């Protein structure tokens, strides 16, 4: 076990950011921390990277207590923060060197680490370009380069794809996979379900600081395999009347977004006609109806009663 977290709790005053979290991460895994904003993902990451101290609980990394062997443990970790954590007036090369030197790289090892990071992130041609002159996607790649020059065993990527185009996002996801192939254990936080679904072999769903569910994608979907999700698109839907959907037999949950209603029902109950009837009797014109393939979004909706991006 590479990382072992037991009963981790973090309070900020009366606000419980992480509530009694227990999880473990094996070497070579890509663990996805999935949850909406405010779920406690970044707080958990900040505790693992010892930027924050837990209110209670235990964190062991490489089999050692984080609080006793912090310096040693931190040297084996790389962090890709949520924001662009770079000196904008420094060049690509200088930024990577800065962070490499923070981890003690000097001389030949520094040059080796620098070239490795530049090659890995395909930034060799931009090594003399100032950070502020790079595109958003390239800055994200540089953010990653700065975290890997010292070749850490564990890489923590905290929402590394926020605010970038789909092409750059794919590039970053591929880099994460590549790093994993090279032997890195990765902790990847996101509120983009698709990314976590595509990348991670172990997923932890968090909400309000609590662990809601954990396992592989299939494990998590199997948790709700006795459910089906009906997607109804209509015109001018009044959200206030949707509460009554829960009175229909078999309906477990619903969510509403831009005239689309997702309704989670028990597979065992045949209630399609009742649901359609509910909409027509409320004078809602239906544009589209269809059953949705189950994904992590449905898992989250079923377990928490809300959408990931609420």
């Amino acid at each position, binding site marked *: 076990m590479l990382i072992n977290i037991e009963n981790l709790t973090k309070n900020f005053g009366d606000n419980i950011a992480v509530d009694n979290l227990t999880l473990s991460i094996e070497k070579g895994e890509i663990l996805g921390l999935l949850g909406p904003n405010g779920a406690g993902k970044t707080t958990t990451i900040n505790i693992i990277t010892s*930027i924050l101290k837990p209110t209670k609980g235990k964190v062991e990394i490489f089999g050692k207590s984080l609080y006793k062997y912090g310096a040693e443990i931190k040297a084996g970790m790389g962090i890709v*923060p949520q924001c*662009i954590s770079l000196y904008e007036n420094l060049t690509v090369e200088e930024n990577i060197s800065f962070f490499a030197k*923070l981890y*003690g790289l000097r001389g030949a090892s520094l040059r080796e680490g620098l070239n490795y990071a530049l090659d890995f992130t395909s930034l060799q041609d931009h090594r003399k370009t100032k950070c502020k002159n790079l595109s958003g996607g390239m800055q994200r790649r540089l953010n990653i380069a700065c975290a890997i020059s010292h070749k850490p065993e564990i890489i923590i990527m905290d929402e590394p794809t926020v605010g970038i185009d789909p092409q750059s996002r794919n590039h970053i996801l591929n880099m994460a996979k590549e790093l994993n192939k090279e032997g890195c254990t990765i902790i990847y936080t996101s509120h983009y379900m698709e990314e976590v679904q595509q990348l991670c072999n172990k997923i932890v769903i968090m909400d309000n600081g609590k662990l809601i569910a954990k396992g592989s994608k299939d494990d998590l979907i199997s948790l709700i395999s006795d459910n089906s999700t009906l997607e109804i698109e209509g015109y001018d839907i009044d959200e206030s009347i949707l509460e009554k959907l829960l009175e229909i037999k078999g309906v477990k949950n619903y969510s509403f977004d831009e005239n689309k209603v997702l309704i989670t029902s028990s597979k065992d109950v045949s209630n399609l006609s009742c649901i359609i009837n509910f909409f027509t009797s409320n004078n809602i014109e239906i544009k589209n109806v269809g059953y949705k393939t189950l994904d992590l979004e449905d898992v989250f909706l079923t377990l928490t009663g809300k959408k990931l991006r609420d």
Partner: protein
Amino acid sequence: MKFLSIVYYDILDLLRDKTSMLSMIIFPIVLMTTLGITLSGAFSSSYEFKPKTVIYVNNLSTTSDFSEEKLILDNFLELGKKNNITFKEISSLDEGKKEVQTTNSILLELKDKNIIVYKNSMNKYSTNIVISMLTSISKKVTLSTITNGDIKTLEEGFTTATEFQQKKGFTSYDYYGIVEITMMVLYGSLYGFYSIYNNRRNKIEARCFQGNLSKNSYILTKVTSTFIVTIISLIPAMVYSLFVLKAYWGEDFLSVIALLLSLNFFGTTLGILFGYIFKEEKHGSFFLNTLIIPVMTFLGGGYVYLEDGNKLLDIVRYISPLTLINKSILSIAFYEDYSKFYISILYCLSLGILFLICTFCISSKKEAY
């Protein structure tokens, strides 16, 4: 090595910030030039230091052994005449006091073991020159026997030059060539202040801690880089002051540099402290950039020359290290007067160390960034 690396890259980043760099270069040059030109007339009339008229009354007892006082006065009269000062002996102290009140004269009363200098509030600087001349003559002429006697003054803080030398009075170019540089040393604090916030906002600070840099070491890297960048960014304005405006900084450059460096330390630590006191950058920026530095600059005479004299205002003014530093530099340059030199440096360094300790304390209590 880690410490030096961070300082190096921090300096590079700050020096490449063209906006800050240009403002640090252009702002003082524009100010010292425009104020120097605009106030050149005011300076030539206001800062004529030589007293025009000195009246004196001889109240020494005829049988006294205090001929030293008379000797000092004789030397003073001789030196004064060479400098076109008019002397008038009067018969009574009351008559002299009236004249001081009505004509801005300076009155000397020779008493046993005392020379008392009377002045009104209008001719402070002339009085200082008179006191300085008397002091220097007393040390030259009767150093061993004057020890029981005092030269008293109605005010405090006069220059205590050991040797009176006729120097040129400073012009507006000299004055603003100096005080705008010291003002900009204070503005250098903003490098540290904004650097703290930028690095916190973009998580470089957190990444440094994750890279095993302690909180205190991080603060010290910021102090060091801000200190060095302030020096570098002021070089063009300093060169302009010295070689274009030809501002006279005196001959003792080492002492002047020591004063500027101590002020820089004060400013740097102040900026860093503000980066830790305020959670919101805009609040810290408001207090530092638009309140504290301009007020300290005003009190230190960075915009207009302020004379000593109002006791309450003087107390407030001398709270600002800029006042002490400006006075020290001007005194050293123009009167070779070092009386405020050590206290100025000690004051700046003490405040700087205090600010640094406060920053360490605040930082140690902060957990989330």
